[in-house]
């Protein structure tokens, strides 16, 4: 695979984006190196999802520059871009009518040429991805019959079947129970260890700081923090980003503190 000289997978430079009259992103700049695990955090409406969609060219336009492996994102053909970046969207409630196997196989689309059919290599990748994500056991089931956690794993499996080097995820563990959250996080960590670059939008700061190499925090469309997790987990930094106070405690197994909910008080309504 062709890499840019300095191993930068994603380079967002002075990027701004409007939807209608609303300015969603402004002067956003950050870089993601190949193989990094980066979490994008921030309050609701900060522009996190829009940023991911601009990187994957689901949203087009905007001012400034987004480069993927050293090339402007606009210069890619969509299929070519899909071979470099895969994307797992937020669960939107729409249920695809396909079986797990059919859905994951659709991840091979960027590798099919017009009129070509699914080949031996595609089937090999399918089998490998189904086993890696532990989805092979329900490969014949319809997506609509799966639990939220199983469905999210299948979406990640389909993105992995794309064979891209970068995986973008939009709140992959929201709405999931603890067991499925843990399973998804284990899977993402394993995928990252295998060399894949991961950029995930999340509201779960505790897990974001424990699992990612770096955190980018957005606030009202701008980057307010970009650095290692340990520096984010300070009450004054968090307060600036979220406009609300935080209580932090030491983690028994990690040098980075974690957030705990405030204790219930007697004057609670």
């Amino acid at each position: 695979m062709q890499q840019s000289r300095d191993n930068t997978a994603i380079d967002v430079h002075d990027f701004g984006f409007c939807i209608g009259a609303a300015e969603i992103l402004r002067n956003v700049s950050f870089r993601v190196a190949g193989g990094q695990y980066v979490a994008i955090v921030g309050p609701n409406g900060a522009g996190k999802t829009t940023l991911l969609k601009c990187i994957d060219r689901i949203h087009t336009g905007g001012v400034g520059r987004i480069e993927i492996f050293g090339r402007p994102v606009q210069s890619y053909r969509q299929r070519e871009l899909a071979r470099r970046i895969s994307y797992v969207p937020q669960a939107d409630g729409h249920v695809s009518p396909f079986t797990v196997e059919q859905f994951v196989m659709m991840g091979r689309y960027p590798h099919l040429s017009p009129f070509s059919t699914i080949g031996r290599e595609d089937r090999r990748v399918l089998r490998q991805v189904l086993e890696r994500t532990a989805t092979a056991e329900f490969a014949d089931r319809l997506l609509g019959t799966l639990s939220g956690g199983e469905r999210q794993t299948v979406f990640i499996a389909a993105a992995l079947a794309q064979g891209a080097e970068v995986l973008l995820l939009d709140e992959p563990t929201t709405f999931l129970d603890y067991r499925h959250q843990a399973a998804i996080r284990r899977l993402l960590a394993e995928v990252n260890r295998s060399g894949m670059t991961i950029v995930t939008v999340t509201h779960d700061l505790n897990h974001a700081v424990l699992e990612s190499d770096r955190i980018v925090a957005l606030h009202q469309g701008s980057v307010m923090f970009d650095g290692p997790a340990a520096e984010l987990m300070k009450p004054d930094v968090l307060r600036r980003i979220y406009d609300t106070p935080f209580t932090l405690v030491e983690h028994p197994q990690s040098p980075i503190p974690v957030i705990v909910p405030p204790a219930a008080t007697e004057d609670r309504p």
Partner: protein
Amino acid sequence: MKRGLVLLLMLGFAAAVLASAPLLGIERIGIGAFWRADVPQEQIDILWKLRIPRVAVAFLAGAGLAVSGMAFQAMFRNPLATPFTLGVASGASLGVAVCIHQGWTFAYLAWVGLSGTSVCALAGALMTIVLVYGLTRARSGFSSATMLLAGVAVSFSFSSLILFLQYVSDPSRSYRMLRWVMGGLENVVDFGDVLAVLPFVVAGCLIVLYLTHELNLLTSGEELAISRGVEVDRVKKALFFAASMTVGGVVAVCGPIGFVGLMAPHICRLMIGPDHRWLTPATLLFGGAFLVLCDTLARTCMAPTELPVGILTALLGGPFFLWLLLSRRGDFSAV
């Protein structure tokens, strides 16, 4: 049942219907008429000059409407989408209503097998395509929701204009308009009509067949399709023009025949599944054969009177569709 077997059964069903339909009618013709030399000339004329062209047009129309309906249902992720959702049929009907009201004949076009109503229907359909496309482009991007709403709004406006023209026309012209809107194949009398429909249906169906992987991905959501590498805007434009041109070509010759385009894709989806690589050929075969079957019944069940075929498509297809719906676990919210 394996999808290959279902498709083979569909092929067999279509072949059987296509082979037997031209032999049925007031004048019964033996199957030997296809190859024997001692068949009366009158029967040969009925077979080759009347029935085969009509059966061919019915098959092409049914196939074109069904495949267009399937493409729209996938594109809009809406199980209620039909080939007429974007107002193409209303545009064609308005063209015909104007033609009948004004008494236009376009006699100089008869040599290419086109009547005045066909020309006006095609013009009306094409103008609607341009209008709906233009309205959609007027807003940023190529939003399916905007296109759907623009189509529905144009359709309602044209329907009102048709009613107005019916109201101000004399009774005989008003009846002709009403009869045309019911749709039918009784005006198909030679191979000129086949040639008028053929290029639209063949080109439209080939484009849809070429885009079956993309249709599968669109069914799972536009954003997901983009992230998998589909040029969604270009694909949607190609599908919009392919389906609309097919419907325009069919409606110009047969009028707006309802039901086939809505239900044939659903019936096939229940039998062969949602994968468009299999669903598209199945829908093409089933839609075509189903309309041939309905038209054969329409011209024989009350002979010598002919029923408008649109009445039979709904009458036969409705109960069959309900039976499928109740006997299987069809999820019609997921196209």
